[in-house]
């Protein structure tokens, strides 16, 4: 035990004396959160839209006025036909086109239903989503007011939203869980795999092997300091998200931290495993980045929905640790669900950690070669 403590102390000294390690541990996660956060929290203000009014009646003009006087939108152009839609969107001058169908007001009064569309520029998916949500909200307000005035008839205005250029847009871009999922695993795996291969490269591993230290001592000694510091990183990420972006945590904070620590352990054990199969630091960095960066971003469901990918990707995604973590923390943070809804993911992560730890201990050579 005293040996282990000595080893852990040594690891902490390594970390605190190396500025680069500290930057990677704390600087990168915070920067990532801030970057992603500002990309997403752009507020809509005076955004240009175009209106294609095929009916030009009282109701449609009224609604157009309402949209443009809201302060969120500015009418850039009045279109004459469907052909114009693509032209203005292509030119990039407007972010969305609102279309009122022929006989809009008439249909609304006589049938209680009318056709209306919002066509948005999907090249900036997040912005497009925001624009559509704002327009829909204004339209809903409008139809509620009309209902109150015109008693007897019930208006039902349900705009049809369509994205140009990027039809498979995700409805909600929850960046904090995504950034946590990929930042935590990459940092944990990278740091541990580097710290072990560094001992191999500097020749200190030779002396450690000839000492009475066992594989378990060395592995635990490497994991514990990074576990503690990753916990600090986790708290910092959550705190910054809450402070800057007012991120809500609807579920239990304890459960969120518990599951995150399990995920951190998974990342660390993966890093140890990588270090047992690589000869030097370069190899370790290469394997960590190659095996984690792209799969995490593509297959975890962080940015792209895996359901829409070919079957093989879907199957492969079950091997990506961050998939389980992302599902679990989304359920906890956003939906506010408890352990009853995330036990499968928790179990999957426990299983993966156990496998990597066992493989590492088995693979860790107590001799050279």
């Amino acid at each position, binding site marked *: 035990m005293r*040996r282990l403590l*000595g080893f852990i102390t040594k690891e902490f000294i390594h970390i605190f004396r190396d500025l680069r390690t500290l930057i990677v541990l704390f600087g990168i996660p915070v920067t990532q959160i801030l970057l992603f956060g500002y990309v997403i929290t752009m507020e809509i203000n005076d955004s240009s839209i175009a209106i294609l009014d095929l009916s030009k009646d009282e109701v449609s003009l009224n609604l157009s006025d309402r949209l443009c006087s809201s302060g969120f939108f500015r009418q850039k152009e009045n279109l004459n036909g469907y052909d114009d839609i693509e032209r203005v969107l292509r030119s990039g001058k407007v972010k969305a086109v609102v279309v009122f169908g022929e006989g809009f007001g008439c249909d609304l009064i006589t049938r209680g239903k009318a056709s209306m569309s919002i066509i948005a520029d999907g090249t900036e998916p997040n912005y497009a989503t925001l624009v559509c949500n704002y327009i829909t909200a204004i339209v809903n307000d409008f139809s509620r007011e009309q209902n109150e005035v015109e008693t007897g008839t019930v208006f039902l205005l349900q705009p049809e939203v369509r994205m140009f250029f990027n039809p498979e847009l995700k409805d909600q871009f929850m960046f904090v869980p995504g950034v946590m999922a990929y930042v935590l695993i990459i940092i944990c795996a990278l740091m541990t795999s580097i710290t072990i291969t560094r001992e191999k490269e500097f020749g200190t591993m030779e*002396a450690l092997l000839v000492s009475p230290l066992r594989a378990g001592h060395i592995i635990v000694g490497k994991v514990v300091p990074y576990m503690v510091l990753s916990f600090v990183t986790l708290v910092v990420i959550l705190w910054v998200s809450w402070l800057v972006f007012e991120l809500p945590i609807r579920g239990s904070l304890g459960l969120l931290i518990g599951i995150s620590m399990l995920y951190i352990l998974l990342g660390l054990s993966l890093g140890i495993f990588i270090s047992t199969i690589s000869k030097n630091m370069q190899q370790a960095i290469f394997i960590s980045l190659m095996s984690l960066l792209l799969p995490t971003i593509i297959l975890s469901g962080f940015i792209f929905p895996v359901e829409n990918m070919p079957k093989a990707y879907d199957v492969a995604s079950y091997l990506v640790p961050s998939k389980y973590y992302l599902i679990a923390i989304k359920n906890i943070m956003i939906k506010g669900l408890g352990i009853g809804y995330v036990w499968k993911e928790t179990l999957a992560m426990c299983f993966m950690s156990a496998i990597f730890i066992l493989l590492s201990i088995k693979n860790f050579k107590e001799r050279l070669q």
Partner: protein
Amino acid sequence: MADKVVIRAEDVGKHFGKLHALRGINLEVNRGEIFGLIGPDGAGKTTLFRLITTLLTPDSGSLTVLGLDVVTQYRELRRQIGYMPGRFSLYHDLTVEENLNFYATVFGTTVKENYTLIADIYSHIEPFRRRPAGKLSGGMKQKLALSCALIHRPALLVLDEPTTGVDAVSRVEFWELLRGLREHGITTVVSTPYMDEAMRCDRVALIQSGQLLSIDTPTAIMEGFTGKLYSVRAEENYSLIMALRANPHVHTAHPFGSSVHVTFNTEGYHATLPQYLHEKGIENVTIEPISPGIEDRFLELMEREP
């Protein structure tokens, strides 16, 4: 452990793929001696040390160290060995003091407990105890690495080329320290590519291409030199060697600093050598008989091997 023999190797072999790093090594190292392993780079010195320190396992033969088998009893053995690898195993970002404390803790002891053993060595670097190990000079790094290897009072100290890359004064000092350790009953096995250091060992083994050529005291090894040795000097060394090697009466001609060590096939030819060299255009030649050093014997042995 009344056994006098600390290391016993019987027909030990080790290969890496097709490369035979060690072949048929038979060796006995006695308690309390300083045993030197002398040979050029790539001869197998480090491999043999890694076998002794249980970092590698032999492919054939048997190797026992301190009465323990290196393959099956390696855990027990590791507690009793102090090892200083070729590249000093120091953490560059840790201070002198922290390095020493770390190795002490890892071996389950404290610096205080064994300070008497390392006092002679550590006192040289103690004034710099708060300096990061990476910022020490070669000689100080070497002393720190030795202190770290000794901190758990090992029965056997294994030093892989401890003087490589260290200045001449520090080298001499280092050998004095090793002799001092003998008083504490520590057996030392040390490798070096420097022939002059061989003389400071109690016994030496000459190793070449993975095979031991000779094991004996340094004096006995020198006395094993068979021929008569002459030192030849001239103004220009290179053309002298070329001329000597072209002469059929010359058996061997090896450069030694500013002179050339020569043995002859023909008895008494040294008398006619100046004339031969004069014909080759080499002037100011001096020839004198000398007594062979350990390097001469080593070169002689090497030439005998295929």
